[in-house]
């Protein structure tokens, strides 16, 4: 058990945190999968519109690595496939059948399961469709099954501006979680690490055996698994570690025990725009419109994931595989008359140049407005203030812009937790995150 304290970072005080207690959501009629959410995966579709699929049946695979398949989170009819520019598949929708057809796999008792070999476990994960839940550091891509990671990290923490409480999500799943930990232990030659926030350790983790437990405190991104890994096993040349979400770890236990792709999920809806900002017992790939039908899509942005890291989705599109919450954020697409000159009692800023600085931790209305025009980069030093990864974000960003990727590597491209803070605070409104992520893709291309 070790305890880490992060010094740098920033807690954006936002309104609309999800509240317990958890409720059961109605059964969704339709779920949606987004093939674009998997970094560096070129999807090749394995189903057609109108086709009936079983829950757990592959929907698409990676063009380059055929064994990496993403499966249907529900049984029913593929009712719609949306394509974007250059015929890239954006969303696959499934109308959930009353009686869902399900792909059945072999089942094992916990004792049998613990006797499985590494190769068997890998195969079960690939077959069942749980493999894509694993990601690799550096660069957060789905790992190569052939490789053996130095360690595996389980993330059970979230302290972004609209945090998700893992204690709620893992309640009652202690045994599956433990089985997951034990199976993951066979995939690595090192240890399994479980990362939580100090003071809110879910029961499943405090009881867990056979894993290193770490607690973290400090401002965001102290609860972000990529940042936590950086503190425990920072990236160095040749090091590869894997990580996954705690709910996925329990799912690994469940799939081995029950032989079916686990579709149940605890999902939160949060944000100022949410009407029902709470926790739901529901299923994978459910849409925001289903959980919170009263939140208006006209005046809100639906984000799969957190407000600093998530992906904008349409209200009928499903929650991403790696996400456990929807953030519903009011759109800020209206001009504000002489806004930059006003005292700004309600303007949220880490600088203290608005009157709101008198109550710095008070949550304020915050919408998607950029807050100003895009300007040239000015080295104000604020990026270094918020970056918890000992990166100089300004230099990293510039190295990617001039495509000096060797320089990007030495400036810590692989360390970046993609927490979004440098983008959030930038007074020049530069898309640091997008630029850095371009650098990552360029790096992956070279690596491939």
């Amino acid at each position: 058990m070790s305890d880490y304290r992060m010094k740098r970072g920033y807690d954006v005080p936002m309104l609309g945190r999800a509240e317990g207690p958890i409720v059961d959501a109605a059964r969704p009629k339709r779920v949606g999968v987004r093939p674009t959410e998997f970094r560096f995966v070129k999807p090749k579709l394995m189903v057609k519109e109108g086709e009936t699929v079983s829950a757990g049946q592959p929907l698409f695979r990676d063009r380059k690595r055929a064994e990496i398949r993403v499966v249907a989170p529900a049984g029913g009819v593929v009712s719609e496939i949306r394509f974007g520019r250059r015929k890239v598949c954006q969303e696959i929708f499934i109308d959930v059948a009353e009686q869902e057809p399900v792909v059945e796999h072999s089942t094992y008792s916990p004792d049998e399961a613990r006797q499985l070999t590494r190769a068997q476990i890998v195969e079960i994960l690939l077959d069942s469709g749980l493999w894509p839940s694993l990601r690799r550091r550096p660069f957060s891509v789905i790992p190569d099954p052939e490789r053996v990671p130095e360690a595996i990290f389980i993330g059970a923490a979230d302290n972004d501006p609209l945090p998700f409480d893992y204690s709620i999500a893992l309640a009652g799943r202690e045994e599956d979680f433990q089985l997951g930990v034990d199976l993951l232990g066979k995939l690595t030659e090192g240890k399994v690490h479980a990362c939580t926030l100090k003071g809110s350790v879910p029961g499943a983790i405090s009881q867990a055996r056979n894993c290193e437990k770490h607690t973290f405190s400090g401002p965001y991104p102290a609860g972000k698994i990529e940042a936590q890994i950086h503190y425990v096993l920072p990236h160095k040349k040749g090091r590869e570690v894997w990580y996954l979400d705690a709910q996925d770890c329990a799912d690994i236990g469940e799939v081995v025990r029950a032989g079916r792709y686990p579709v149940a999920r605890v999902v939160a809806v949060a944000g100022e725009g949410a009407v029902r900002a709470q926790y739901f017992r529901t299923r994978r790939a459910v849409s925001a419109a289903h959980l919170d039908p009263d939140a208006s899509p006209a005046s809100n942005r639906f984000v799969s994931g957190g407000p600093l890291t998530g992906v904008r989705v349409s209200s009928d599109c499903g929650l991403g595989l790696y996400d456990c919450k929807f953030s519903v954020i009011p759109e800020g697409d209206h001009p504000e008359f002489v806004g930059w000159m006003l005292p700004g009692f309600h303007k949220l800023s880490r600088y203290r140049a608005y009157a709101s600085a008198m109550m710095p931790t008070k949550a304020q209305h915050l919408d998607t407005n950029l807050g100003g025009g895009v300007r040239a980069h000015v080295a104000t030093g604020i990026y270094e203030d918020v970056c918890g990864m000992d990166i100089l974000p300004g230099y990293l960003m510039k190295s990617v812009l001039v495509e000096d990727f060797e320089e990007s590597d030495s400036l810590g491209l692989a360390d970046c937790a993609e927490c979004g803070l440098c983008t959030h605070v930038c007074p020049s409104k530069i898309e640091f995150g997008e630029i850095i992520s371009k650098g990552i893709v360029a790096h992956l291309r070279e690596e491939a």
Partner: protein
Amino acid sequence: MRLDFEETRDLWKKFEALRPHFQKGGKFEKLYPLFEAKETFLFVPPHTAKGRVHVRDAMDIKRLMSTVVVALIPCILWGMWNVGYQKLLAQGDPTPLLACLGHGAWHMLPIILVSYLVGGICEVTFAIVRKHEINEGFLVTGMLFPLVCPPTLPLWMVAGGIAFGTIIGKEVFGGTGMNILNPALTARAFVFFAYPAHMSGDAVWSAAGPDAVTGATPLAVAAAAHGPGVVTALGAQGITYRDSFLGLIPGSMGEVSALACLIGALILVGTGVGAWRIMISMIAGGLAGGFLMNASAGATSAGIMHLPPHWHLVLGGFAFGTVYMATDPVSAAATHTGKLIYGFLTGVLAVLIRAVNPAYPEGVMLAILFMNVFAPLIDHFVVQSNVKRRLARV
């Protein structure tokens, strides 16, 4: 408070209706930066976040730069009063508050106006030619430059100086964010070297005219004095530490009062806009430089060598340079550690220049310009140590 009522929306719509004329293919396509500037001046635009970071800090460059201008207000007001005060004093007239302000404004406002006008025209012209947005940085540059000039500077030199500063100091490097030198200081250096008679000597600091009895600036007095009795020599000219701190001495328009600069510093640091690392380390550097000189001064060395370190902080442009000039985020060192080194060296250098070259006692501005050139190098070493830390991981 949010000004978001019907009328402002109508105004926005009227503006937007004009947009096509300024966009590609429109009649005034070339003038798009002007349109953008006007629109973003009146409104925070309705642009929303595009990438994965959906909520953004309310701070923008416009607010950042205007905060600096706000932090300059104490210096502007004090300078205005002091220009009038020194003038009336030299003429032997009474010095009521309003008269001082009035006389000060009479000399100062035209210089500020010309600086803004010419600087603005340069900025807009380059924005149009280069097709980029008008950068609000010129709001700061256009105000900084007049404040470091003597009140007697002819307007055409003001115009020439600011044009030089904007074009050579900034635009030839590729515009805001790319420039190495502080544009306002470049402007000042240009005027100083091109027209030294108007920027130095005893006569230029008072707006009283050539015939009035004008006092020498404290730095000139200190440079002219000999031996350890420099403070007495200053006192003989009626210059006390208190007066120098408050700014009751002749000097450049905006930089005489260390007190006003201190208030400005509080605003800048309090709002998080100014780099406290540079301010603190530069003061430390100035004091260190002062001690160094005291230690090496002999009985007959120039008085300035004997000047107690804390005097350096309140004389000439040291305080103003520390608070407003050295902290310019574009030309200063960008890394945290780099800022500490850069500030310290600037402080030491400023004091050394004062001493080594008594003919040019105002070393601060030169020191900052000099260190502007070295800032990228300092940053380079800081970045390299960051890279090494990463490589050293085991």
